[in-house]
């Protein structure tokens, strides 16, 4: 006899609300942990206490003492993190050591640049990859297949920083470098997903019944490959965000990527913690947004 199990009926709305609440709690926990991890790494890094300004011979002993006092609060990492979280609740994200400006204003100034560069780059990458993948799958000619694999393979083999340098030499915009960094990853996965969907028996049956290729694509292929493509879209946000670091640093674009590079080089604890929290938050929100979309499209399978 099967063990009895109580079945509690839940309305679809309550089920979705429960899932969203759980997901938000996970995001909050991961973001907080990410910030703490970043703060701990900076604190434990060799030479954390060193401050170049202390070497300035024009500074008096009192001034050097004042500089040390200013950093004393960062020695206890838990204390620093709790103070940071309290400040963040009030909208105060601290002051950057290296740039001497409030972190909030730095993020506000630079975020639009990154959003524009990464956004256009991502759109271009998706346009190139999906056009190539669809062309290869729709016409099924070896020439398209070889062209797509060769082009994506070539860009997959070039380091992101080299693509950024090449864009500087060729005077190409930074978003093109980001597009070329992200494009091969999208192409490889979307090509595989579409090929798998096209190889399903019901597609052969639909073709045998005389359905047009456009109709097959819209009604039979995209519903199968779509959810995974949406999940891929969420992941590509993280890839594009990572690509902004070499692109903005080498192309001289004043965005979040360049700020992250500067913060890392100068071991700017307040800035690094905020950037880690921001990057983690954006990545997790993009992935969760993709999950919600999949859930809305195919509620039973999500």
């Amino acid at each position, binding site marked *: 006899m099967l063990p009895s199990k109580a079945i509690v009926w839940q309305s679809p709305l309550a089920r979705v609300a429960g899932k969203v609440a759980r997901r938000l709690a996970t995001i909050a926990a991961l973001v907080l942990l990410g910030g703490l991890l970043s703060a701990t790494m900076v604190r434990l890094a060799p030479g954390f206490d060193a401050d170049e300004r202390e070497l300035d011979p024009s500074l008096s002993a009192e001034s050097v003492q004042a500089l040390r006092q200013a950093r004393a609060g960062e020695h206890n990492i838990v204390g620093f993190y709790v103070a940071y979280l309290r400040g963040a609740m009030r909208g105060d994200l601290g002051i950057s050591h290296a740039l001497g400006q409030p972190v909030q204003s730095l993020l506000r100034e630079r975020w639009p640049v990154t959003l524009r560069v990464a956004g256009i780059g991502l759109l271009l990458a998706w346009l190139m990859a999906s056009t190539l993948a669809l062309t290869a799958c729709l016409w099924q000619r070896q020439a398209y297949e070889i062209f797509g694999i060769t082009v994506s393979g070539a860009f997959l083999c070039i*380091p992101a*920083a080299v693509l950024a340098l090449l864009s500087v030499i060729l005077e190409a915009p930074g978003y093109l470098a980001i597009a070329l960094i992200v494009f091969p990853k999208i192409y490889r996965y979307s090509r595989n997903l579409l090929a798998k969907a096209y190889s399903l028996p019901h597609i052969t049956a639909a073709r045998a019944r005389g359905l047009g290729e456009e109709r097959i694509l819209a009604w039979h292929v995209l519903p199968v490959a779509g959810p995974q493509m949406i999940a891929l879209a969420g992941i590509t946000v993280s890839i594009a965000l*990572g690509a902004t*670091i070499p692109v903005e640093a080498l192309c001289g674009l004043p965005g979040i990527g360049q700020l992250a590079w500067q913060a*890392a080089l100068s*071991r700017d604890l307040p800035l690094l913690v905020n950037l880690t929290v921001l990057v983690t938050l954006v990545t997790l929100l993009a992935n969760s947004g993709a999950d919600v979309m999949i859930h809305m499209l195919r509620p039973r399978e999500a």
Partner: protein
Amino acid sequence: MNAARKLACLVVLSVCALSLAANWLAPSGYSKQFRDAPGAPPSREHLLGTDEVGRDRFARVLYGTRISLLLAPAAALISTVLAALVGGLAGYLGGVWLRLARGFTDLFLSLPWLFLLITVRALMPLNVSPIVSVLITFLILGLLGWAASARVLSTSADALRNSDFVLQARASGLHGLRLFLIHVVPNLKPVLYAQFWISIPVFILAEANLGILGLGVAEPLPSWGSLLRELEGLISFREEPWRLVPVLLLIVVMTSFQLLLSNEEVTA
């Protein structure tokens, strides 16, 4: 093995052999300066010309290739062992351990790879001897690159934990580490090998990115990253095309690695 894979294997082995023979093939040491010929074009003495401080570029490419090609597999080995320990054990133990390991890997994977790498590398001392900088760079790659492999391994080990033969082994009285080592690890080997081979090109590219951003191997020791940094001063391709040789070599080696890894392994 098809023709393309054979050719790729031959290319990787040839480049490895050439780099290992650098002591005999290179006309000079990687740090020897020819002060009378800085920035010289290719000639009989200097096959790829010299860099801005007069060092033979051909010698530096050979020695740099040796460092990148030998240490990337070492870093891949570290990351695969870590992935097996975290992912494999968590998948085998299941329950709260699996959830904890997945939460930890999710935390690592939620940060873009380059962001994490640059942050951690910058936190390590930058003003160190070249040998120490090589060790730091590749150790960081190995210690940070395990998360994606651990995710794959935890799923495989979780599936094995619930398989019939493991259940039978348990029923026969085999438990704990013995069961893990005798029945689970051998079945994880194909996944471990795949993750190891996938990690090598990823780490080669990561080292190149770090080197270009000035966070890789310290001068005068060459690596593909530091060699590619030379591109920063390039104004046009037509002027000095021989400066593109390290990029072309990197592309050839990376393409060979891609051909060596089957499509299923790459998408695993």
